[in-house]
């Protein structure tokens, strides 16, 4: 036990840093010093706690008090009350959204109760800039252990663990390594895919920011297993904090001799470099990523040959995702059996999800595979905001699909999500409530795919634009029933014929919403209405003359003066002038304006 009475952990993730967590740390340190308490309280900046929406997070140990939404000026009160008097600062405790109860420890929070942290084991616990803290928590022991095994044994352990790639496709990691191990060549490479282009996803960034050594160690083990001496981390330039922490970690590992020549006194040598990506979504596709590292335009090519045989500069290369690498050390250290004890039969282990949308608790959660959608959304996520009704959850990012309420009890893993017409993807999970229009959602994702298409192949370049045109007709009330059929056939054709994963999956949001929410598409096409009240062209605002008291509030907010009427008399909306901005609807306090 150290002689500190308290450790104060302050979140240094991107979210909390942008809401001034650094200043909170400075303030705390200054105040502690002033009061002569700096030998009793250690202040540490860690990686992300996952509960970013409640940030900045400050956690006091050993009593586990979890303070949320802390401001720099709260530092003084935290020292005076918590450190000196031993009293919790009530107003900074988390309030649970459904019961409205204050909860003081993270362990007691529904948000954390069902989580198991493997990939995020150190995020929010250690100082990512201090290699000793990583070592203190068993860091680099897995590498030492791997080096005492044969490369074949390492690959075998990975195969037995059943770990599947966390970057989207879910390909068995051990098998990929086995291919690269068997591939002929004296030069081989290990690449970490840290491109993370999915909108809304930030799990890879959080791993790199909170625990960069876990990725370095995983890559070194992979390198030993396949016989590589050199590795690259391909990371987007938009992630400056992750890049900085990773570079610092690489430097420290080199100083300790954990990267470089003759690691652990063996003849294994491994060196690691960072390559900054340009931030195009398609560059996350492995063949495009390889082209980009080689200095060419990031365009995909056909597979085979697979990178495991012909990758970087034509040499055997394994490419794995950040979270995949972060899982490697625990598997080697604790064994494949331990790993298989978590998760489901065909998808062992845990998965990090970025839970977003209309749930109460938005954040990064790591849960065992096989947990149900309901547990994630209602137990961890705390249910739907404002007690609205759950409508669907979109998984898998722009290439995924929407899953309706009837499948809430599905255990989540790679195969079940695919069977439902969606996918795991990198782990985005966007919750939608009754006010979401499904054709509109499909349009949003398709717009993303159209924008990010590299344009190399026709189905994706032209087909997706045509799909988007049809969706546009649907959401603006100009489509016919034939358009629905056409959209389905076109979507399926693109899936089958596009060159890379981007095109092959881009119709998923359309196809899955058409499948589960057929009524809603038909309402748009046949009745020219938008049941969720989202598509502007399909809704009309009307004033109920019975309810209107003539307060004039609506007429005053209407930007186009479409509302007429005299005071204390029912008003009316001129439909030709109305631009459907909804301002009047939001303003009326008497419920007199209807959205139809």
């Amino acid at each position, binding site marked *: *036990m150290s*002689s500190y009475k308290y*450790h104060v952990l302050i979140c240094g993730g991107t979210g909390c840093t942008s809401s001034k967590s650094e200043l909170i740390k400075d303030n705390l340190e200054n105040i502690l010093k002033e009061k002569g308490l700096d030998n009793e309280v250690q202040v540490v900046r860690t990686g992300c706690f996952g509960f970013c929406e409640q940030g900045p997070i400050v956690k006091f140990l*050993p009593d586990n008090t979890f303070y949320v939404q802390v401001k720099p000026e709260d530092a003084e009160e935290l020292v005076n009350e918590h450190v000196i008097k*031993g009293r919790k600062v009530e107003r900074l405790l988390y309030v649970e959204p459904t019961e409205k109860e204050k909860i003081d420890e993270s362990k007691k929070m529904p948000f954390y109760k069902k989580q198991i942290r493997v990939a995020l084991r150190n995020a929010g616990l250690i100082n990512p800039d201090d290699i000793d803290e990583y070592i*203190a928590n068993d860091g680099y022991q897995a590498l030492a252990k791997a080096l005492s095994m044969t490369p074949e044994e390492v690959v075998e352990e990975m195969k037995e663990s059943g770990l599947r790639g966390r970057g989207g496709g879910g390909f068995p990691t051990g098998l990929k390594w086995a291919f690269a191990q068997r591939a002929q060549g004296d030069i081989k490479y290990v690449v970490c895919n840290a491109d993370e282009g999915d909108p809304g996803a930030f799990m890879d960034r959080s791993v790199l920011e909170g625990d960069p050594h876990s990725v370095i160690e995983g890559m070194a083990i992979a390198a030993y297993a396949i016989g590589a001496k050199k590795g690259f981390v391909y990371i987007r330039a938009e992630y400056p904090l992750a890049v900085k922490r990773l570079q610092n970690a690489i430097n420290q590992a080199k100083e*300790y001799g954990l990267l470089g020549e003759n690691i652990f006194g063996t003849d294994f040598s491994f060196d690691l470099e960072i390559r900054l990506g340009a931030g195009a979504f398609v560059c996350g596709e492995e063949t495009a990523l390889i082209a980009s590292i080689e200095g060419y335009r990031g365009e995909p090519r056909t597979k085979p040959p697979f990178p495991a045989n012909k990758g970087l500069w034509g040499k055997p290369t394994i490419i794995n995702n950040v979270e995949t690498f972060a899982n490697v050390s625990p598997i080697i250290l604790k064994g494949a059996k331990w790993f298989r004890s978590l998760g489901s039969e065909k998808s062992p282990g845990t998965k990090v999800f970025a839970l977003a949308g209309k749930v109460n608790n938005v954040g990064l959660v790591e849960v065992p595979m096989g947990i149900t959608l309901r547990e994630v959304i209602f137990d961890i996520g705390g249910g739907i905001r404002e007690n609205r009704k759950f409508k669907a959850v979109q998984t898998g990012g722009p290439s995924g699909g929407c899953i309706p309420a009837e499948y809430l009890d599905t255990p989540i893993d790679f195969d079940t999500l695919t069977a439902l017409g969606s996918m795991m993807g990198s782990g985005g999970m966007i919750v939608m409530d009754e006010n979401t229009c499904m054709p509109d959602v499909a349009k949003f994702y398709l717009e993303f795919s159209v924008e990010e298409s590299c344009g190399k192949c026709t189905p994706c370049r032209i087909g997706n634009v045509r799909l988007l045109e049809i969706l546009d007709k649907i959401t603006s009330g100009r489509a016919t029933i034939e358009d629905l059929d056409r959209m389905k056939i076109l979507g399926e054709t693109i899936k089958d014929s596009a060159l890379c994963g981007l095109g092959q999956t881009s119709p998923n949001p359309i196809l899955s919403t058409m499948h589960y929410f057929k009524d809603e598409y038909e309402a748009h096409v046949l009745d020219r209405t938008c049941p969720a009240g989202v598509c502007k062209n399909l809704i009309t605002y009307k004033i109920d003359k019975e309810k209107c008291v003539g307060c004039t509030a609506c007429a005053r907010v209407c930007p186009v003066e479409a509302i007429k009427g005299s005071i204390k008399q029912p008003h009316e909306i001129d439909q030709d002038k109305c631009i459907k901005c909804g301002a009047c609807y939001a303003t009326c306090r008497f419920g007199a304006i209807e959205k139809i």
Partner: protein
Amino acid sequence: MPKIKSLEDLLKQKEAAKDKLSLRKIAEDDNIITLRVAMGTCGIAAGAKETFDKLLETIEEKKLENIRVIQTGCMGYCHAEPTVEVVEPGKEPILYGKIVGDKAKELIEKHILNGELLQDSIIGETHTSINE
């Protein structure tokens, strides 16, 4: 910085760095013994700070790893300050009063290490904290 050339080197480095994390790992552990020292105004006036330090010192000296000392607010036993509540997983908490001087060390040696209660220091029935 030292070069790490073997597993032994790594474990040595780990041992040296262990203290950095011990307090944090203990906090995550459910099977941990907690000593709660009341640090309200009257507790501090009665010497709770010294008690706290003595407890920490003893724990360090005995190299105990499954125990943490935390401060709490006033527990309402002003007449018996400094008070220390021992909370062991799965057991009723025991509240001790007037833990001054060598009593702190004795508490750890007897209660924690030998499972013997310090009969004459126990304060009646322990209240159940509303936070638990």
